[in-house]
């Protein structure tokens, strides 16, 4: 039995995929985590719809992206402000509303940010493979047959028992505003990412001031696998051959050329470059919203700070749940 399709893709770039929170249980057999690059936008979208917070969504990173709805349902669009239009009418960012059969939604190249999330009531229904609906592009499985979305794809949604949203919709304040005091920006307006020194940090001693003080430009060769940083290279005091070790998203490695790589959602599970630092995972959603060509700054941090940031994020999610549910109960049908 084929579930009833609710979304048809009319227009898409080459690397838009179905994702959920990822596939974390199989790293030891070489399976990348995958999953959304911006978990805050993803979870907030699902909370707005009353979905399971791991319900699969469409991660849009290539614009324009356009869909037609094949059934009446509710949607949320979060993440990058991509000037979303529903039948030509612009929706505010971080917005959820009900949509009718035949309506068309178009997402444009973002004003700010890099990735937008289209969530649908119930979540996108693709088969669960190894515990997740995320697309594993490199392994060629998960999501829509292990490949990016293509024009004419039709996607079904899982059953939703939540009352539909009012047509006029409802929005929330994005975390970069609601949590502005938690996520720092430099005086020149650059995203500051907190990083904790890692195993080979001391080898780079001579270049550490430069590592922490310069703005790093996110190179155009950056994607879900990793972000390459351009700037004045940092080099170790001696060249060592590392034995292959487990990687996690956020690790900052330094290849021989001296320009760091930050491994991300689709990264390999193992690698062998020296590691200088690890960006705290609570800050990775901000990196996901940095467009190639923009610059970031790295700020030395520690586990205590990471725990504090994680707590603030969890409190934000709690407030969202508390605020969204009553609104839906009152305004629902």
């Amino acid at each position: 039995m084929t579930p009833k399709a609710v979304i048809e893709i009319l227009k898409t770039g080459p690397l838009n995929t179905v994702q959920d929170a990822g596939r974390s249980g199989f790293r030891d057999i070489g399976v990348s985590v995958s999953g959304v690059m911006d978990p805050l936008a993803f979870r907030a979208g699902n909370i707005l719809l009353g979905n399971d917070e791991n319900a699969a969504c469409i991660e849009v990173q290539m614009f324009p992206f356009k869909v037609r709805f094949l059934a009446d349902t509710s949607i949320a669009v979060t993440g990058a402000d991509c000037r979303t239009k529903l039948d030509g009418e612009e929706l505010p960012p971080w917005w959820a509303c009900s949509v009718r059969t035949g309506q068309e939604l178009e997402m444009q190249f973002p004003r700010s940010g890099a990735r937008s999330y289209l969530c649908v009531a119930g979540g996108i229904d693709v088969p669960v493979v190894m515990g997740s609906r995320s697309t594993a592009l490199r392994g060629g499985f998960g999501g829509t047959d292990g490949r990016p979305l293509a024009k004419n794809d039709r996607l079904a949604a899982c059953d939703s028992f939540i009352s539909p949203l009012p047509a006029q919709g409802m929005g929330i304040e994005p975390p970069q505003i609601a949590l502005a005091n938690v996520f720092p920006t430099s005086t020149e307006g650059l995203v500051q990412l907190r990083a904790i020194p890692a195993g080979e940090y001391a080898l780079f001693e001579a270049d550490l001031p430069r590592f922490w003080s310069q703005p790093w430009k996110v190179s155009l060769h950056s994607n879900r696998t990793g972000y390459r940083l351009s700037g004045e290279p940092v080099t170790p005091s001696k060249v060592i051959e590392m034995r292959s070790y487990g990687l996690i998203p956020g690790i900052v490695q330094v290849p021989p050329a001296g320009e760091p790589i930050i491994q991300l959602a689709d990264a390999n599970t193992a690698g062998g470059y020296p590691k200088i630092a690890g960006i705290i995972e609570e800050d990775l959603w901000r990196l996901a919203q940095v467009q190639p060509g923009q610059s970031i700054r790295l700020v030395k941090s520690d586990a205590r700070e990471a725990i504090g940031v994680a707590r603030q994020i969890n409190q934000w999610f709690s407030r969202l749940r508390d605020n969204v549910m009553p609104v839906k109960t009152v305004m629902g049908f």
Partner: protein
Amino acid sequence: MTIVSHEVPSRVSYILASQGDNIKISTIGSRAWLIEAPGDFDLPAQRRIWSLAATLRMRDDVESLIPGVTNLLVLFRQTPEDYDATFALLAGAWEQAQAVHPQGKLIEIPVIYGGEHATDLDAVCQHTGLSPRDVIRRHSQGCYTVFSLGSAPGFGYLHGLDPSLATPRKKVPSLNMLKGTVTIGGAQTGVSALTGPNGWNAIGFAELTLFDPCAENPALMAPGDSVRFLPERIEL
């Protein structure tokens, strides 16, 4: 454009990372802790890593364990509040760890040595000074142990390569090496699990699926398994 799977060293000579007699414990971000065994790249060290993993697997606060090559990445569910206590926990667990001999299975892999997929056999001969027949004989006589899985889904790093066959990874990776290609990378050997870019040296080909996401056990190989290569055909 993409970050290729097998990193290519830019210089020929390396100093091996060594911690003397002590383990090295470091963190990656706040939740992941890396324990690196002291000493050589050898089977006893790896067996102790497996024992350490088996001990830590029983803990509720551990989300994932990723054994590497003589190291183990421990990913906790939450960032540990107490750095010193966590350090002591992991160091203590290492002290307790014994070199276990896992009851691995034996995987026999028929290989077509040489031929159209063995694009780097000449390079291996040149580097080792051996003839193609000698390379094939020494490779197929080896008894290998799966050290760890990684780099690609289901790819096993195999230990036990005849040292005379060790050949550095390629400076320029092959862009589209077929899955099932039998390769040598440094002092290790393996069978590529995915078709794609690959920096290891291709010497043969095996009709073999190492990874099936829909299978109950998606990866054919597991750490501790033994692997033998059976020369099915030699094309020179």
